[in-house]
């Protein structure tokens, strides 16, 4: 074997997201298709800024949603391009359908999953409920537990996915906020040429861009062929584990950083181990140090690759174990343990290790903090169960709180009365086939009870709420609202608080219009059945930002074409504000946003302001 020299590296202080962007700088992907979602957004923002300055050549495609982003990436990858995407939580779920297409067609690309809890309720913090949906997609999944690993794993991902025996898309997983926003000392390859020679040149046997070699990608395939196709996928994963082991050895020689398929930290002859993913494993190492110092034989097991699962490596490491605690930032409701816990237990079982006491814990959901003390207590549970089987439950939620009492917080505001919602300040008369609207002065309108209470958390000077209030001032009678995901939703419903004095419903901003149309139809059906009094009148209003009208445009058009009696109100603040000011399709041409930088190579937003009103008018709504 040729000897490999360590490459020159520079030391910096960087976050996980910054390191993904640094890797992208070195790799210079052909293409990135993306859609903003916290906490992964910063990756595309940074890469867009590099592009604007002319530091990289990557084509940046701001899609209309993650489904579109994944489609764009798939298309680009069929052309033999190096392709990147980054997402989190519902972004991953919204693109889920596309992921098996990518893997089943054996098209390598890299997707950075910055983990976050899946809705609902909506939570922007880290857990692995999104990642767990990815396990069945056929993608390779690499785990990056530190900002450094975020960089390294992206380089490894390109090489591994494009390996001739593998040819698979690769997901690189960092923990939202805990790693994506954590700043640590890191080392970056100084010379781009070193990165280039490590990742090599992409070589595709099939491409959609060679008319002299036409191919059909994505055929209609039933039995008896599909099972064979899936067996090939299985074989690719087997090859991937082997290829991974080779690649990380080479990478270690270049960088002096080791990424064994299964990393173990602590006693080599441990009595008990904690099997735990990503950043929480790093935290747990501090607890292991403490317990080792007091003579306890414990260890942390942390897989650096989750798909393919390092089963053989796990078997090799379990021989001294008497117990194992499998702790996960995800649950599989209705099953005793999260998905990974079942996977670990099945490996032990297949190795005839039924004598190891295995217990499962769900922790840290929705970003709930997990520190060294918590890790210690999980490790101690593992030791207790050796002393006394049954000493601690086999499954449990760690850190769930029962609450203070059976009491609910006292209601501070009474429901608005019929008189309050209908003060008679706005009058509509029908005369000569036209509607005549009369409205009182602003002063009297100001005395009207608002449907939104003060105390919401919008930025100072936010235009949404004066706009909404003025709109609501014009409606007499009861109103039920549905808000799309976005600023107005987030700042008014910060649990356990709600600024809404009337009934409010949220659905993800791809899907608010259909949701409200279902409710409207049921309201009228219940009236017809006599389940709701025929005299009851409710105005149904959907509130959306301009972003919701990008990702949710299709369902909104569908809803409008069906012509339900409801109102859709879009507040157009010309960007995705909730995620920190990225371009939306209604951002004006040439405007600079965090994903449409102005620079040597970029002119701000490169396409025109979307005319939502004309699009909706074309549906023929009244």
């Amino acid at each position: 074997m040729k000897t490999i020299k360590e490459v020159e590296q520079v030391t910096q202080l960087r976050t996980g997201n910054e390191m993904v962007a640094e890797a992208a700088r070195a790799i210079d992907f052909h293409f990135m298709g993306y859609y903003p979602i916290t906490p992964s957004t910063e990756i595309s923002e940074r890469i867009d800024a590099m592009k604007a300055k002319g530091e990289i050549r990557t084509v940046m495609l701001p899609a209309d949603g993650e489904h579109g982003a994944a489609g764009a990436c798939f298309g680009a990858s069929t052309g033999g391009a190096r392709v990147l995407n980054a997402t989190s939580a519902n972004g991953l779920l919204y693109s889920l359908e596309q992921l098996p297409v990518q893997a089943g067609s054996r098209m390598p690309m890299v997707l950075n999953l910055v983990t976050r809890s899946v809705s609902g309720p909506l939570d922007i913090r880290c857990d692995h409920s999104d990642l767990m949906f990815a396990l069945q997609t056929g993608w390779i999944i690499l785990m990056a537990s530190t900002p450094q690993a975020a960089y390294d794993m992206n380089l490894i991902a390109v090489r591994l996915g494009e390996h001739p025996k593998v040819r698979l898309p690769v997901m690189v997983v960092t923990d939202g906020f805990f790693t994506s926003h954590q700043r640590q000392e890191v080392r970056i390859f100084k010379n781009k040429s070193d990165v280039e020679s490590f990742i090599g040149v992409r070589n595709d046997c099939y491409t959609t861009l060679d008319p002299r070699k036409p191919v059909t990608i994505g055929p209609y395939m039933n039995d008896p062929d599909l099972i064979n196709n899936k067996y090939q996928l299985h074989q690719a994963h087997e090859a991937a584990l082997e290829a991974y082991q080779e690649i990380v050895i080479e990478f270690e020689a270049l960088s002096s950083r080791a990424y064994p398929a299964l990393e173990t930290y602590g006693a080599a002859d441990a009595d008990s181990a904690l099997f735990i993913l990503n950043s929480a494993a790093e935290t747990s190492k501090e607890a292991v140090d403490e317990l080792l110092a007091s003579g306890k034989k414990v260890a942390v097991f942390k897989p650096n690759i989750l798909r393919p699962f390092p089963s053989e490596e796990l078997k090799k490491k379990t021989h001294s174990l008497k117990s194992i605690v499998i702790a996960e930032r995800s649950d599989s409701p209705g099953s005793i343990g999260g998905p990974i816990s079942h996977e670990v237990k099945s490996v032990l079982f297949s190795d005839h290790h039924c004598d190891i006491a295995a217990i499962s814990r769900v922790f840290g959901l929705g970003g709930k903090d997990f520190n060294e003390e918590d890790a210690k207590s999980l490790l101690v549970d593992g030791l207790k169960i050796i002393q006394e089987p049954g000493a601690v439950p086999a499954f449990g939620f760690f850190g769930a709180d029962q609450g203070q009492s059976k009491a609910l917080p006292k209601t501070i505001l009474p429901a608005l009365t019929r008189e309050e919602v209908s003060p008679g300040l706005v009058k509509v008369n029908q005369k000569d086939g036209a509607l005549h609207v009369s409205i009182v002065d602003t002063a009297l309108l100001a005395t009207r009870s608002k449907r939104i209470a003060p105390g919401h958390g919008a930025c100072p000077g936010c235009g949404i709420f004066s706009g909404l209030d003025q709109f609501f001032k014009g409606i007499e009678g009861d109103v039920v609202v549905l808000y799309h995901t976005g600023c107005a939703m987030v700042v008014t419903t910060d649990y356990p608080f709600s600024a809404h004095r009337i009934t409010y419903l949220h659905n993800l901003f791809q899907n608010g219009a259909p949701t409200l149309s279902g409710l409207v139809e049921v309201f009228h059906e219940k009236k017809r059945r006599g389940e709701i009094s025929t005299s009851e009148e409710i105005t149904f209003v959907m509130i959306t930002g301009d972003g919701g009208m990008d990702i949710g445009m299709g369902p909104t058009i569908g809803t409008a074409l069906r012509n339900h009696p409801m109102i859709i109100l879009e507040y157009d603040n010309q960007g995705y504000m909730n995620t920190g000011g990225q371009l939306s399709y209604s951002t004006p041409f040439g405007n600079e946003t965090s994903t449409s930088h102005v620079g040597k190579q970029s002119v701000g937003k490169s396409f025109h302001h979307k005319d939502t009103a004309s699009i909706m008018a074309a549906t023929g709504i009244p």
Partner: protein
Amino acid sequence: MWFFGREQIEIPSRDRVEIRLEAIGGQGANSAGKILAEVAILEKKFTGNHFSSFGSEKRGTPVKSFVRFSTSRKPIRSASFIRTPNLLVVFHEYMIESHPEIFSGVGIETDVLINSAKSPNELLFPKGVHPRWVGSIDGNKIAHGQNCGLNSVMLGAMIPFLPELGKESIEEVGGRYFVKLSEAERQANLSGLKKGYQGVRVKTALPHQDRINLEEQDQVRLGYENAPFGGVIVNPGNTALKSHEASRKGFAPKLDKEVCFNCGMCDQVCPDFCFVWKINPASRFGAELVGLDYQYCKGCQKCIQVCPVQALTLTAENEITELERSTSWLENQK
């Protein structure tokens, strides 16, 4: 050893230092944390890390920023929040009451630095909070005077509490950080940093200082036994219990009732629904403006811009009287 406000502050030598910055989005706590981490890790070659936790991307929502470092270079791997800080920095005095949970984990080894015009002895903490040293700095005044970021001032004021990092290094790294700004802004921030360092007053915490008895509003802690399932909130409009005074930057609108002719324009534009009204047939338009509830006012000045007769003027906080502050939106709903 540092001499400030007649008291000398002595920080024992420490191997591991954990700092927690508590701020409101937009006050620059994340950048301040980043600068501290750069000093600790890149300059001093300590091990360490830094990260921030955001409630959302909004300005005006609470932000926590954490910095930890080890002077003996023990590996620091923990990616968790800092629960028992050595130094707690509060970027706005209002947070003491509006977000009392920021004091969690404060113990006898915790020094607390607060942005406040009050002296350290005058500051009060929630019951049971007993820090070691208490520092105060009139950050808003300095930031306003120097036209610089509040975080630069706070950074300067932290210097006495962080002997491991040292004044020179913090100034140097701060200076490098400000290079991105225009020359005038750079100078402003550098002098803000210096003024923060010079202006900080430090005292030992006094036993009487934990006097704030927070009102028992809506204090029931929700958990799996008592929370309505599905995440449903059954308490409409309870954001009215929240305070957003910490979003203001030392100024607020002041209402002159003599000048106001009750036109209602301010109510049309106020995003935070601060204005309290009542029906009054004797009034010109049939409605009367009672006042504004400062609990919700974020100081955006939209009402000031729109008022046709200048009945609202931008005024320094301390010139708004208790009486003016006493209008309560919530009380008026009853």
